């Protein structure tokens, strides 16, 4: 078992939540989402995000619109749907609970 894989999996587990959070206020296109995630070191390689975005979109959590780009191909601007907003809300709660739970477990161990 590689530590790299485990790390990646941990990050990827919350990736959906992160993406939805990024889109909470403003629409963004892939490079912007990627930039935020990369800065936060949530992502090492970009490839991971594409199937994820498609999945979220197909699940009706995201929608997108095309926008012309001055450099390069037209961009897909993603935004949250109503379902997506509800979904995010629920995830927020879950995340808080999870964070609390993890903190509890890890700190307990430390003692």
């Amino acid at each position, binding site marked *: 078992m590689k530590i790299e894989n485990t790390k990646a999996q941990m990050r990827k587990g919350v990736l959906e939540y992160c993406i939805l959070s990024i889109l909470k206020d403003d629409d963004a296109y*892939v490079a912007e989402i990627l930039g935020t995630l990369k800065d936060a070191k949530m992502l090492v390689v970009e490839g991971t995000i594409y199937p994820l975005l498609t999945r979220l979109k197909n699940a009706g959590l995201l929608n997108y619109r095309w926008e012309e780009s001055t*450099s390069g191909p037209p961009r897909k601007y993603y935004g949250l749907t109503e379902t997506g907003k509800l979904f995010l809300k629920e995830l927020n709660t879950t995340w808080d609970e999870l964070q609390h739970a993890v903190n509890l477990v890890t700190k307990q161990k430390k003692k």
Partner: protein
Amino acid sequence: MNKTVNINLAGIFFHIDEDAYLKLQRYLSAIKRSFTDSQGRDEIIADIEARIAELFSEKIRDERQVIGNKEVDEVIAVMGQPEDYRLDEEIFEDEPRASYQRPKSAKQLFRDTTNSYVGGVSSGLSHYLGIDSTWIRLAWILFTIFSSGAFILIYIAFWIFVPEAKSTSDFLAMKGEAVNISNIEKKIKEGFDDVADTVKNVDYQKYSNKVKSSSTTFFEALGDVLLFLLKIFVKFIGVILIITAGITLISLFIGLFTVGTFGFMDTPWTEYIEVGNHPDVPLWIVSLLAFFAVGIPFFFLFILGLKILINNLKSIGTPAKLGLLGVWIISIIGLSVIGIRQATLEAYDADVITEEKTLPITAKDTLTIKMQGNDRYVRQLRHRDDYRIKRDEEGNRVIVVRDIEIYMKSTKRDSVVSLAIKKKAEGRSYDEASERAEDIKYFYELEGKTLLLDGFAITDYANKFRDQEVNITLTLPEGITIYADDNTSGFNNSWTYDDYITIDRKEEEYLKLVDGKFVCESCPEKENDWEYDEDEDEVKININSEDQNFNLKIDEDGVELNNEPVKVKIDEDGIEIKTEN
């Protein structure tokens, strides 16, 4: 120096090095394979392509700049290896995941001229089959020896039809992965997807929003399986075609050589066929025509089989196809013409009487008839309808025929024997037949009262064997005595008709011609059957003669004829038999 490729990536135009292009292509197809259709693969790929295009655009400062391996490597580093895409699915996947395969293109058969002895066929095959080229070369040599050279043809066929690996992509394709079932399946899947793509691309936006139901997935999977089975079936037919046509071609080729008819190979029996009941067209032409007439259709079948099996097979080209078709039609026409000629070959018979002369033998003489041979041409004097090919004194080839027949006629008009030699042959026209008949060389000799007839006739090799025969008619005056040697049996006519007479198998006998019939002078009471019944002291003789039966019994009681005692008296007057009464 490197070749560049123009690509359209998400609607943006790029110049890209060929090897970089191939790398990118393999990368994209590897990613493509790591998704299933139900995940919205085409959309994901479109997004990825758009991102790659974006990354490329960032790297390009000048419009004329070419994207090389370096740029592609950088982009791949940013985007992640196909495994990174895959890991994602392991977590989120709630649908069955497509099996992941390393990015490799399927192998194609090329000739590897960089590593060749002759045409690069063997090294190309070694890449294709994954066997060391040494073994393949060895196999070629062995097959060539065992098939007496015919495998050379197959090698040449490969040389012609398998394209040479020239570009980088050719070499990469040549060294691709081994051909196995999963790759065939992959190929079909890709082919199917390509078709699906073109349909879907018509309305991309609409497609992207389309909700895929599990039923469509099922039908696609079913389609995949059906296509796969169909492809396997077609390949199987291809293999069968190749094997059948290949074997036929090899046997035809071997046949062509074994018949030994290329003019330069003179097997002893070639000339027999050539001279025999065969068109007067050289035999090698006939076999060559037959070879083409049968071989060309099989050759096309062979190509068809190869085409089914090997996708990137070079076409033989329209001129070659038309040429072969032309040769085939010519062969068929040629064979028909020869067939017609063959049918008319023996349409006419001709008899030529070349010699008619009287022999100084009168009715009082005894004529001895004997056959003679010639060690050069015939050893055994026998009447035969066939022919032999021999050499004459000058070494020229001659045809020896032994169809000699002796006919006898009686005449009351002449007082000497006369002899007529009639030569016969067949031909396409009467003139040809009579010319051929005249060309028969036949000899006889008269030594005293003995007529020595050759038991054979010869004719020139060029005249061919066309039922040449020689009839000798002896016209005999009434009262002559003839003696036919034992070796004339078989040559003697044994039928009595018109005024022909027969010696009726009485060779080695003195026969006198009386009233148009031979009367045997030397024969013992030949017409009679003898039956001896010898006891210790009596002799019983049963004689069956004409329509009477005799029973002659001799014992100590005297002589009894038909159980009646008779007196037998033998003296200088002859034999006198009297009944005792």
